[in-house]
């Protein structure tokens, strides 16, 4: 018998997919907290652009000279907020955290296909986060080009503050992140295709597994493109290449050498990654929501096969519509029409999923626990955010709303809220299995209510701003007469943002208190049917104590007529 692993091998450099999943979770949590604080700084300047903040100057002396927030600091916050949230939270938490923890268990296997690669992926992601945060502290500060990082602004180090070493660190960080995610996706795909237990056919997998699988396919094909683009941009910056430099550039009268490239090339490469990326952010959440709805509606998912097909369709079509970010970029307007038609077509599988969620709830016996509340909130928010996509997907309308708050409102509702609700739902739902304790229901419900009302109060007014023609990434609107009437709306949004972020403290208190609560949770507190509720709590190292489960049933056999209980686990013959 081998010696038990020491602390380092058990908790720091562990090969256990469950430990790695928890590590990813805490990484995403830390990034989310930093990202949220940055969003508050952004909102402060928008509500009160000329107010002095002497105590903030103590923390950020370069960013707040004489207490006034510099516009370059504002843009650095915008850039870092977007980067942290999209990469370190929305790509990590739903997929790398919960996926790593629960995919093997739900498939009935003892470990991921490549545990060593899994370990490397996590620590590379950790390094990537460190390098990204370091950008805040170098000369010039963090970059100011937005998470989209368009050249030539990002290709010429003298184009602005933060575009020097800060931009280099950003690119290195993203490069490492791409590589780590790519490796992680290989793990998930191979595990899903090769390591399912006996009886677990593909169409008996829970929808969470389909979500992780589709997401992993997207990551496999999209992250390498961003990696290549980041390398090309680093080469333009330091090796004298001109991938993105068309020649004839002149900054404050100083010519910049280079010729033959195109700024549009970056946009094509970036958005070829960037559009599938947003489906990467939402698909695991969709899987989790379907899973949780079935559990607390005590009903199977309505149209399981349609849900699988819809996810796969979203995954495939997601690669065909990147040009809708570029309708007015200088791209050929005929291609824009093609991208626009395809963009509106992708609304169909998303609509099917929404109908099927409503269908799952129809005729149900709804138990509104905290995870269920967040799952239902997800549906409401997905409807709201998804529908505005129909405006932006039309070429002529996008011409009016591109780069306005209409876009910012759209993607925040979908990513910044719906996807995050998916993460919250998953956390509340699987906390008992991961940490052997129940989270407090009262605090959970309070967290839900404040957040649900709060995010609507913040982001619906964004659409009003956008319709009025308010451009995005503006540090203030003091120079524009046509935007003066919107000042009070900015104040309202900022106050709502502060309240909503404060409400997240309730979640944090609940989370950390519950970690150390006395009473242990049962193995299957929610009476769920899938394999994670078949294991011990928390699961042992090989998940099933040597007795690998055999699967006889579909994943969502709730309220089966004639059954003794209102649920039948997948392992029941």
């Amino acid at each position, binding site marked *: 018998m081998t010696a038990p692993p020491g602390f380092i091998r058990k908790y720091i450099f562990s090969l256990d997919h469950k430990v790695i999943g928890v590590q990813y979770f805490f990484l995403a949590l830390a990034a989310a907290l930093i990202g949220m604080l940055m969003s508050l700084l952004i909102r402060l300047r928008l509500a009160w652009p000329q107010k002095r903040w002497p105590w903030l100057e103590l923390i950020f002396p370069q960013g707040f000279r004489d207490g006034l927030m510099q516009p370059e600091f504002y843009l650095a916050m915008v850039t870092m907020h977007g980067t942290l949230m999209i990469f370190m939270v929305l790509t990590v938490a739903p997929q790398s955290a919960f996926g790593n923890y629960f995919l093997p268990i739900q498939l009935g296997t003892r470990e991921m296909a490549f545990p060593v690669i899994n370990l490397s992926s996590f620590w590379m992601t950790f390094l990537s986060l460190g390098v990204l945060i370091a950008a805040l502290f170098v000369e010039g500060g963090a970059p*100011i080009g*937005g998470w989209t990082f*368009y*050249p*030539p*602004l990002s290709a*010429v180090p003298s184009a602005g503050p933060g575009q020097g070493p800060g931009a280099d660190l950003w690119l290195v960080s993203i490069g490492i992140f791409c590589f780590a995610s790519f490796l992680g996706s290989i793990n998930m795909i191979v595990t899903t295709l090769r390591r399912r237990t006996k009886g677990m056919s593909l169409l008996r997998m829970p929808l969470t597994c389909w979500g992780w699988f589709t997401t992993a396919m997207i990551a496999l094909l999209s992250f390498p493109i961003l990696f290549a683009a980041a390398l090309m941009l680093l080469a333009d910056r330091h090796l004298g290449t001109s991938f993105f430099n*068309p020649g004839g*550039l002149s900054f404050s*009268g100083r010519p910049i050498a280079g010729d033959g490239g*195109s*700024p*549009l090339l970056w946009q094509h490469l970036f958005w070829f990654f960037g559009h599938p990326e947003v489906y990467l952010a939402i698909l695991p959440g969709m899987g989790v929501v379907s899973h949780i709805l079935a559990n607390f509606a*005590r*009903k*199977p998912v*309505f149209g399981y096969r*349609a849900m699988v097909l819809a996810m796969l369709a979203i995954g495939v079509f997601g690669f065909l519509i990147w040009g809708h970010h570029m309708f007015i*970029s200088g791209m050929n*307007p005929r291609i*824009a*029409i093609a991208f*626009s038609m395809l963009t509106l*077509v992708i609304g*169909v599988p998303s609509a*099917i999923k929404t109908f099927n969620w*409503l269908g799952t*709830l129809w*005729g149900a*016996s*709804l*138990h*509104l*626990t905290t995870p269920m509340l967040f799952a*239902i909130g997800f549906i*409401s928010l997905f*409807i*709201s955010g998804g*529908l505005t996509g*129909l*405006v932006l997907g*039309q*070429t*002529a*309308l996008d*011409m*009016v709303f591109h780069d*306005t708050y209409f876009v910012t409102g759209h993607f925040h509702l979908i990513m910044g809220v719906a996807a995050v609700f998916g993460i919250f739902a998953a956390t509340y739902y699987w906390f008992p299995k991961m940490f052997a304790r129940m989270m407090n229901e009262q605090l959970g419900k309070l967290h839900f209510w404040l957040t649900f009302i709060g995010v*609507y109060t913040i982001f619906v007014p964004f659409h*009003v701003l956008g*319709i*009025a*023609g308010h451009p995005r990434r*503006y540090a203030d609107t003091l*120079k*524009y007469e*046509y935007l003066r009437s919107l000042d009070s709306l900015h104040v309202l949004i900022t106050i709502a943002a502060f309240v909503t972020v404060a409400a997240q403290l309730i979640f944090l208190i609940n989370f950390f208190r519950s970690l150390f609560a006395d009473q242990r949770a049962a193995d299957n507190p929610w009476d769920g049917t899938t394999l994670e509720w078949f294991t011990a709590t928390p699961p042992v190292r090989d998940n099933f104590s040597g007795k690998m489960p055999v699967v006889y049933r579909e994943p969502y056999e709730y*309220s089966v007529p004639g*059954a003794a209980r*209102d649920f039948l686990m997948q392992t029941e013959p």
Partner: protein
Amino acid sequence: MRPADFANRHNPPATILNPMSRLLAIAIWLIAIATIVLMAWFRRLPEAISEHSGRIDHQFKITMAVIGVGFFVAQVALGYIVWRYRAREVESARYSRGDLRVELALMMVTAIIFIILAITGQRVWAQLNLNQSPPNAVQIEVTAQQFAWTFRYPGTDGKFGRTDPRLYNDADNSIGARPGPLGIEPSDPAGKDDLVTGSLVLPVDRPIDLTLRAKDVTHDFFVPALRLKHDAVPGMKIHVHFKALKEGRYEIACAELCGQLHHQMRAMLEVKSQIDYDKWLNEQIGKVNNRR
């Protein structure tokens, strides 16, 4: 079949003591109503003065009506479901794996609506972008830089002089200065009568063709009142055309993040009557010629 022990273990029975489902349903309905009211009441589209803006605003209103109905129906349905199907002691959930016919029907309806929206939306776009501007359009060049706009009129010869990025001289932007901020080659005769200004002045009711250029990074020429927006990309000369139908002063904003003062890159658009425009243009070109 009796509902599971689960209900009794984790939720108190669904009586008036457990109002969560009612609260959630009401909250969803209120959110739906508040959103519709906010969007309808505070619809603050800017004043529209171009020839194509009517068609764009019309398409926008139709789209908003469609998604408004979809939004309202979906949220109300969600709220109703939450209200109606809360767990009850006697009733258990209906075991159903789905209904293919309902699925297909909903899918067809949705697809048809989306495709109609997609097709109708392309008309205005095609008219604006797939056609050349008429040959008598007023030609003006728009150049963006960190963080200002410069406009160039070709003068009486109707030709723009050659520019050279190595000759950019922002320091002297006075009328008729050569090379000036656009780097107009002093040796090129076509550039001798070019007028370079900081405001865009246009005649009303005439087709206008703007050539968008940029000196350093990608900017975006955005005039809310014209319902016009397009990127100005270094290394490219991008044409946009429109017709302004109403005189007045309107604001031009930059709509592509271009650096730390991206939010202070404003220029003014002035639409004048043909007579006033001609008078202004002749006056300005006179000053340019006097400089020579």
